[in-house]
């Protein structure tokens, strides 16, 4: 028996290093994010702070998508719907004179939880190509729903009179305030997701990704765990939507177009699925690439598309394979 307890001790030590590479990478990113605004004002270009906020918001969404795509092998092509639900939560509540960020987040999360639970329960009855297409179709359903909501501008969307308050304080009024609030949210949500992936639940989720039949053979019914992860992911994505509404001070169905869902997948894959820190970097890379190409040519989408096609075609095992080879595809255990 002694050899066994020794081994147990070894296990505990081996799996509890001071800081895993993933957390270190994330902390590095967070420090860089924190330094960006002062740098931008030093360069006399405060507009970057607003772009930065947009990047941080998409980083939150990419993080959320990674939770199911990277850790659960669920390729959701409808995640923009949750971004949209988040933005519309802000617009709808402001119609009732409610402008507090916490209430908005609460409402956005609740709406998303319901939508994710219903559409996820149906989508998760299927696999592979079906799952991708069905999540895409449900995303479009939400898109058309908000297009036909004439009370909120329909297709054209609606402008927001002011930014949200935080517990009644006007913290978000300045671009700096909004930026740092978003950064705090991102950091908090990163650690939340990180904890989840390391937890009992996370291990089950990853196990289902690796081999669902085996998981059933030891007594796990995959559906309930996948659905729970799907709902959590949807709720976190909606929080990104709340930020985006404040950043743009404008809400429209454009936030939930299927192109946005595609872009979220691009961010996750660029950064490396199943790494959490990777998709945050992926969001930065994808959006900066967009900005850069956009500055070069009005036809930047042509080049962005070309970039995607070439990335997939000229890495022998696809982007995912390339990243794994480069050591970015660190797999959760």
């Amino acid at each position, binding site marked *: 028996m002694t050899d066994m307890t020794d081994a147990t001790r070894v296990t505990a030590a081996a799996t509890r290093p001071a800081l895993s590479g993933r957390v270190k990478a994330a902390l590095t990113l967070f420090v860089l994010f924190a330094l960006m605004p002062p740098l931008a004002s030093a360069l006399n270009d405060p507009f970057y702070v607003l772009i930065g906020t947009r990047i941080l918001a998409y980083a939150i969404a990419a993080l959320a998508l990674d939770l199911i*795509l990277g850790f659960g092998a669920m*390729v959701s*092509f409808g995640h923009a719907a949750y971004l949209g639900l988040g933005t519309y939560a802000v617009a709808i509540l402001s119609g009732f004179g409610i402008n507090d960020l916490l209430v908005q987040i609460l409402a956005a999360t609740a709406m998303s939880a319901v939508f994710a639970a219903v*559409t996820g329960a*149906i989508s998760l*009855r*299927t*696999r*592979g*190509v*079906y799952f*991708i*297409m*069905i999540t*895409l*179709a*449900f995303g*479009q*359903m939400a898109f*058309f*729903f908000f*297009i*036909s*909501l*004439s009370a909120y501008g329909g297709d054209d969307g609606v402008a927001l009179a002011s930014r949200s308050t935080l517990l009644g304080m006007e913290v978000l009024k300045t671009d700096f305030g909004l930026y740092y609030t978003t950064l705090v949210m991102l950091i908090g949500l990163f650690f939340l997701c990180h904890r989840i992936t390391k937890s009992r639940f996370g291990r089950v989720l990853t196990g289902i990704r690796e081999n669902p039949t085996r998981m059933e053979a030891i007594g796990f019914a995959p559906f309930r765990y996948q659905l729970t992860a799907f709902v959590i992911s949807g709720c976190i994505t909606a929080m990104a939507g709340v930020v985006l509404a404040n950043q743009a001070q404008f809400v429209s169905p454009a936030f939930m177009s*299927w*192109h946005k869902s*595609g872009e979220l*997948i*691009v961010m996750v*894959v660029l950064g490396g*699925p199943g790494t959490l820190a990777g998709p945050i970097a992926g969001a930065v890379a994808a959006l900066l690439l967009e900005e850069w190409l956009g500055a070069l040519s009005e*036809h930047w*989408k*042509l080049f*962005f*598309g*070309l*970039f*995607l*096609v070439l*990335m*997939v*075609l000229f890495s022998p095992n*696809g*982007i*995912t394979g390339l990243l794994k080879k480069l050591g970015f595809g660190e797999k959760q255990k």
Partner: protein
Amino acid sequence: MTNLFVLQLLNGVQLGVLLFLISAGLTLVFGIMDVINLAHGVLYMVGAYLIATFAAATGSFWWGLLLTLPAAVVVGLVIEAVVMRRLYARSHLDQVLATFGLVMMANEAVKMIWGTSPLSVPMPEILSGSVPLMGPLKYPVYRIAIIVAGLAVALGLFVMVNYTRVGMLLRAGASNRDTVSALGVDINRLFAIVFTLGATLACLAGALVAPILSVDTGMGESVLILTFVVVVIGGIGSIKGAFLGALLVAVVDTVGGVFGPILLRSVLDPSAAGQAGRVLAPMLVYILMAVILFARPAGLFGKTA
């Protein structure tokens, strides 16, 4: 009321026939190659732009159509050889990314070549005007022509799938991919044929619809998603499923969009019914999809996994 219903029903059938042309290729590509192709809607758009160009150059819709078809085959072959062929063995995620990239490229390229303002294609003289249907009800000849042409292609596909060697391979491939390789068939050639056939049908749909729509860059997008719904409802790999799914989706979308609010008015007060109808109508096909999938996760004619 009856007249309106008949009119909407015919519109639904006309849309359904077009959706079938697009879905038929897509469902085969999914079923046989297990490849998800987001760029399928792009082909529909390209078909419309091709006929707009050729019809303008030749001054004739018919010459335009005649030139569009071989051009569509070339487009299909090129996309298959350059991009799709390398994706067959890849993960679905890679396929999503690459074909998403294709969509971005194609939309932008179309804007660069043809500009952003919508194009129009003149209706052929012989098919313009309307014919009386019943009583005072008239229906445009061109839409009837679309229905007839679509049904003819559907019949041709049906014959091909059921009575030819390629069709036999397609059916075998859709139900079991390994069987086809075991038969010693050159799988790459079969895939190229299937993809090009699907691409040509999608282009044809775009070309046929061009005279009654404005040809613009967004047209592939909405159709793509509807096509996905059709394929999912019908069952991946099933031509029969695609046909029934396409008609079902199109009729529900067209008829439901008009009659949903009318039905609602009988239970709600008019303004509430109008509001609810406007919101519900565009969601109907998705609700239909959800209901069908809830009962049959593999679609109406899909093999259960």
